[in-house]
């Protein structure tokens, strides 16, 4: 369903992504792991055109973009792509001047042009799904971090994305608040949502992901079924990475 071939991205003289190939089928949950600076966040941002890749071909369902060509700069094409992807940020990035409900309704009304009543019903449904129907009229500042992230997930889901990209969705949260966000993601995975998550929570990755991709130095060093990658790492760099993580309490 999503198919990336030869994705490259440089910032100035630094090559951040050095030829990434990635395929993911519908309903598949993939965890992206790797040391900081390995390019996993940049990869995710490239998949939503928040960063513009220098080269590579990207396909998502029926939308295909060849990076580095003039047509890749077309705003409408990018917008079509973005509407098929949802993005969850580490820092939530809710709109602070809008209530939880208004945050979720924003895109259905102004991008999909849904009638207000329909958008309202959709948003309320999604807020119930993430367990926050009673917080619909709260401003982001009146919500805890975990609640804000759950609103952000509802906001992304309101566009009915084909894939949800999650950039360290729990890293900014206190340990006791992580559970509620992880539970929501778990439910989504169980319902067959396609997820690509960048995460440091290996235990969670083990629980939820079908596959794990290990990135280092802008390349895919190792990838495979979750248990195989996490329990029998082949590459010495991955072994070292996992060793460090086991030594650290989660």
């Amino acid at each position, binding site marked *: 369903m999503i198919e990336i071939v030869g994705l490259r991205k440089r910032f100035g003289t630094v090559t951040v992504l050095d030829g990434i190939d990635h395929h993911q089928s519908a309903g598949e949950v993939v965890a992206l792991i790797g040391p900081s600076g390995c390019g996993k966040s940049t990869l995710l941002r490239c998949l939503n055109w928040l960063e513009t890749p220098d080269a590579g071909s990207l396909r998502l369902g029926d939308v295909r973009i060849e990076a580095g060509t003039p047509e890749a700069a077309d*705003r409408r094409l990018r917008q079509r792509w973005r509407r098929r992807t949802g993005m969850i940020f580490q820092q939530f*990035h809710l709109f*602070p001047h809008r209530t939880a409900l208004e945050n979720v309704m924003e895109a259905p009304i102004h*991008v999909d042009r849904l009638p207000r009543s329909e958008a309202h019903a959709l948003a309320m449904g999604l807020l119930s799904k993430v367990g926050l129907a009673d917080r619909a009229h709260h401003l982001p500042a009146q919500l805890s971090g975990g609640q804000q992230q759950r609103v952000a997930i509802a906001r992304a889901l309101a*566009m009915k994305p084909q894939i949800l990209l999650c950039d360290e969705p729990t890293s900014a949260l206190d340990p006791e608040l992580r559970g509620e966000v992880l539970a929501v993601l778990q439910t989504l995975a169980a319902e067959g949502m396609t997820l690509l998550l960048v995460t440091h929570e290996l235990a969670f990755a083990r629980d939820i992901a079908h596959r794990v991709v290990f990135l280092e130095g802008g390349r895919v060093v190792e990838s495979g079924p979750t248990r195989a990658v996490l329990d029998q790492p082949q590459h010495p760099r991955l072994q070292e990475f996992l060793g460090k993580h086991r030594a650290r309490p989660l």
Partner: protein
Amino acid sequence: MRRVLILLLILMAWTTGVRSTSGAAQTPEPAIPQVLRWANDAEGGAPYIFHPSDNPDQLVGFEVELAQALCDRLGCTSQFVQYNWANLIPGLRQGGNYDIVIAALERTPENLALVAMSRPYFAFGQQLVARTHDTTIQSLGDLVGHRIGVLASTLSHRLVTQQGGLEVRVYDENVNYFRDLELGRLDAVLTDSPIATVQLRNRPNLRAAGPPFAPAYYAIAVPTSSPELLTRINGTLESLIQDGTLERIYRRYELWGPQQATLAIWNTAAVSTTTSGASTAATRPRPKPTLRYFSILMEAAVTTVWVSLASMALAMTWGLGLALARRYGSRPVRWMAISYIEVFRGTPLLLQLYFIYFGLAQQWGWKLSAGAAAVLTLGLNYAANEAENFRAGLEAVPRGQTEAALALGLSPAMTLRRILLPQALRISLPGITNDLISLFKDSSIVSVIGLVELTKEFLIRSLDAGDYIGLGILTAAIYLAMAHAASLGARALERRLRT
């Protein structure tokens, strides 16, 4: 700033009151000082006092020569002191800056109530001036419903006010109303005949409408505490008239006419019959400096409010455009926005006002009304400030907000309008409110193009009433109320924009 000034004025008025009552009784000063300091205002002062255009370093005029002749006879050195014309009498009463005033002050009961005045040195009348082609205007009576320009706090000003039914525009000096008459912004000008004589010489499209009327005299103002100086000046003037010195001076400026002959036979009785216009003003009961001025000041405050609000609306719209051009525009667009901001922030408001009101009319024939020019100037000027306020607000919105909006599929324009601007406005609002409040006060600058707003009305009325404290406090209170309303409005808006 304006409020501090008013407080200072109040303080000055108070302290001088104390000084003059205690000081007068003590040391008797010599009647004629070594250096006689005489005050006048050289701004737009032909034929009285001016810098000739072919020799701008020189100061000439019939009053300059009169002062010289006077001092020659009195055996002292003459020294000119530049002073704002409207404040010459308060300045003399306050003392310290100059000894006498020779500045076309009318010998009216109003002035005589404030200072001592010499025998007249010049006889003049009120001259109505209209455009050459506009033959319908012959007297004040033809001007009902028309716009007429006068100099503030003069006999002309009082006469047109008494006439009623005229749209009166008040000016600070003597040249700009002729220019506005030529440009069609005014239908007539009422002014002292010597000014009309000089100005009509090189303005072929203007004409004298009817003969001069309401004859009156200019006299030298002397502090009431110097009766001996007054006697000496009167005697000297007498001899300058008798031996023809005055006539020779006036002829050099082509100002000698039959009416000057009345100077020689002048006596106190003559004045009461000839200055009919002034004496009616005198019989009118002088309004007490009380709350009776409130409605007059409030009317002027209306001008202040609409000029300020219209300017602010323009400044916000145009400023937002500039801020967006500066932040999101291509390189040349960005460069133009920055240049605009630098130029309008870095040059004086008064200069911009003159450029827009007089410059545009002169160069390209764009004759803006005073109100339009005022709003345009203040709006264009404040737009530079508002652009920077908006830019600061836009830059303070975290980058993640843009990313979140784009990731949802919102277009860049939609992102700006629905996500960034509401948050930026909230951040910029305190700065914008500040500017609105200073705009209320800065709008007083438009009085130089004839709009009477609150500060100008205060200046005019405080001179009339001789009351700086009561009117000053009243005016300050009105400004304060406007500023307070603005802060309340801003606070309510801030709550609505919430965060």
